[in-house]
């Protein structure tokens, strides 16, 4: 028999399948939306984490600690009176190795490997006259060379008494005038420049520097005792233009004293290498003592995600750069 039912009745038989398909489609859409949303949230979460930056900061913090500790150990060793440079280096090496081992134990708990080893040391000499007396060498000579072509001057302070200085009445004396009056002077010379600092009394403790290029400069302090800082270019704590020239001559410099009987004072000088004058020793006045001028260390820091090695990191043995 022929099917004479209306066309729209035949199409109604597909309605349930359409409902199911639409439901499936909506479900798939919701699942995809959830997955995309999750991916976005996770990406933002990972992007805002500071894990890589945090490890870098830890490395910087470790290296800073290493440098501080090494400097502290060196300064302490330099402060212990010991005539042997080898002993000081050995003590530094031992203490640094101990520190490295102890620090490594802490690092093991954080899954990091941290080591520091002593690489090289530079020998220096600290020359000291603690008593306020004439500036002579160990044999009493007033004209003597403290250092010759030294690798650097780390520290140079001289405290002088005004009462012992030669009195000059000329407000603008020449170098020849001052030399004729046997004024105390310190000469700093390298291959390119020579600066002579004359120290005398002209209404106060007066410094006058005569340079090999023909220029001169003067500064003064009214106190009866003043501390002269040759490396920092200061007189009694204030900036002194007359010392700015000598302050730049720190490498390959020869330091010579003249007319040491025309001054009384105390000083501390730190130079790279050994002193020139053989009359100055550990138990003499003035005295000399070997120190660790500077050291270099190798630093290693290993952690999950970061490998850091820094070799020949320089550490100063005192207040000098």
């Amino acid at each position, binding site marked *: 028999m022929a099917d004479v039912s209306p066309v729209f009745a035949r199409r109604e038989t597909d309605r349930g399948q359409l409902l*199911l398909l639409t*439901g499936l489609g*909506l479900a798939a859409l919701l699942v995809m939306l959830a997955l995309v949303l999750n991916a976005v949230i996770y990406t933002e979460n990972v992007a805002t984490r500071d894990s890589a930056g945090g490890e870098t900061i830890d490395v910087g913090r470790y290296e800073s*600690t290493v440098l*501080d500790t090494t400097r502290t150990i060196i300064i302490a060793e330099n402060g212990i009176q010991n005539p042997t440079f080898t002993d000081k280096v050995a003590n530094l090496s031992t203490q640094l190795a101990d520190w490295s081992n*102890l620090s490594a134990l802490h690092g093991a708990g*954080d899954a990091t490997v941290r080591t520091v080893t002593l690489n090289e040391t530079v020998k220096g000499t600290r020359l000291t006259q603690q008593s306020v007396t004439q500036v002579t060498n160990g044999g009493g000579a007033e004209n003597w060379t403290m250092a010759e072509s030294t690798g650097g001057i780390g520290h140079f302070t001289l405290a002088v008494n005004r009462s012992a200085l030669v009195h000059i009445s000329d407000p603008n004396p020449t170098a020849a005038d001052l030399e004729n009056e046997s004024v105390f002077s310190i000469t700093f010379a390298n291959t390119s420049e020579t600066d002579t600092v004359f120290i005398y009394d002209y209404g106060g403790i007066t410094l006058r520097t005569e340079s090999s290029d023909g220029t001169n400069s003067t500064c003064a302090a009214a106190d009866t005792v003043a501390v002269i800082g040759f490396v920092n270019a200061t007189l009694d704590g204030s900036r002194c233009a007359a010392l700015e020239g000598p302050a730049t001559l720190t490498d390959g410099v020869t330091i010579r004293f003249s007319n040491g009987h025309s001054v009384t004072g105390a000083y501390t000088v730190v130079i790279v290498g050994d002193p020139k004058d053989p009359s100055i020793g550990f138990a003499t006045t003035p005295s000399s003592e070997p120190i660790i001028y500077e050291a270099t260390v190798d630093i290693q820091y290993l952690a999950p995600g970061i490998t850091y090695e820094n070799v020949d990191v320089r550490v100063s043995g005192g207040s000098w750069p």
Partner: protein
Amino acid sequence: MVMDDTRGQLFTVEGFVAALVVLSSVIFALTVTAATPLSASTSNQHLETQLAATAESLLDVARANGTLRPTVLYWDDTRGTFHNASAKGYYLSCRVDTALGHQLEDRLERRGTTCNVNIRYVATNGVIRTEKLVYVGEPTDNAIRVTNTVTLYDDDRLRQSDETLSNTTLANATRFYAPDVSPGRLYNVVEVEVITWRM
């Protein structure tokens, strides 16, 4: 003409199945979606990062301005405990009576966070041991931890209750928590550990 009237049951079944599929997908989507960064949950990564930065900068500044070491040495060698600590031997809040302690209180405790502070040192057998300086309670799962190293020397002097130097050096101390584990001038290497979380 005979009409086929059994398809109604099939329509019903298909409807139920479709509804079930849609409902299942909705439940699946809701359960797998993670909390957004704007949610108020304490597992918020941004808050943790900010808290870590605060604690790290606090310790770094303390180290730079010299207030970290005095806290480590804030030890009463007579009683064998930190100065002004509780009967348990440690502080029960971040407010330690040192300059660093004041910073902990100001930058952590007063801003809705709290802290535990431990000092980890090397024992004579090489094991890392911990001395509690501050213990408030058990940290939450999203607590953050920062550390900073302090090197102790034989001639370091303990601090009195007002943070001034005492006459007792570490070499002379008899009841200091960390032992002398190095034969030279080096005494010990300790780590100050700050664990902080939001209350």
